[in-house]
């Protein structure tokens, strides 16, 4: 419970207060590295999906081409 309270209290104030730009601009803000990692992960997930999509589209096209070229070989193959 105490553990819980220590975490929650600062969170209730998120977005309400803005850091003074001057105070400690010199050092990296806290959690900066994690954020870069997070955005890299987002980028990776999106790229992976794009890649999967285009691969699947290519496969469908290939199979469609194969089927259609079959038809030319033996017309109206009944």
């Amino acid at each position: 419970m105490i553990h819980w309270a220590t975490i929650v209290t600062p969170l209730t104030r998120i977005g309400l207060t803005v850091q003074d730009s001057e105070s400690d601009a010199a050092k990296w803000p806290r959690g900066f590295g994690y954020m870069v990692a997070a955005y890299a992960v987002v980028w990776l997930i999106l790229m992976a999906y794009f890649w999967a999509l285009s691969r699947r589209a290519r496969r469908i096209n290939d199979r469609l081409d194969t089927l259609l070229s079959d038809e030319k070989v033996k017309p109206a193959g009944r």
Partner: protein
Amino acid sequence: MKALFRSVGIPILSILFALDIWMIFFYAPMEKELQASQKIFYFHVAAAMTAFLAFTVAFVCGIGWYVRKREVWDDVQVASVEVGLVFSAIVLATGPIWARTAWNTWWTWDPRLVTMTILFLCYVGYLVVRASLSGDARKNACAAMAILFGINIPITWLSIQWWRTIHPDIGGLPGTRLEPKMRIAFWFSVLLFILLFIPLVAIRSRMERAAKALRALHRERLFGGTE
């Protein structure tokens, strides 16, 4: 459609995303308590909202299929489930990274986290079942799942209000209590994600249509003639 997206859409989206990243990191001011770790919020929440939107679209498509049995309902449905899963994956991946910096742990058994994971797993189940069915049975079953799982969307959405939770509650509609510059950056991110969501669903549903045509053609070949 696809060519158009590739030639015009991708460059535009890339530029917009670059602009968004700039806004997030440089335009929006630094939050006092959380500092840089608050920066996740822009993508994390935007992705979550888009995922909810996607699953809601799937829900509507499920009803649409039962009301009017047009193929397009099924195509758009699977497309939005899949794209919704991608966005949920973003939510679930960025969440722990932020939690590590803010809560000092990768994962807590917080209701919001759990319900979001559940939602994700439900729709994974959807895709698994979809893969093992075919024909009308598949469309009927998928529509049923989209509707039933859809009931869980509001539960997940409201979970921060229902349960005692340590997940930040941004007070009803996200972004209403933000500092103005933060708010602009946030809504820009949301808009951008939805802008990405729409062509993705369009492309994926056209692909589904092509795959169906392919299967029909294939079976026709197999049986010779119409049957």
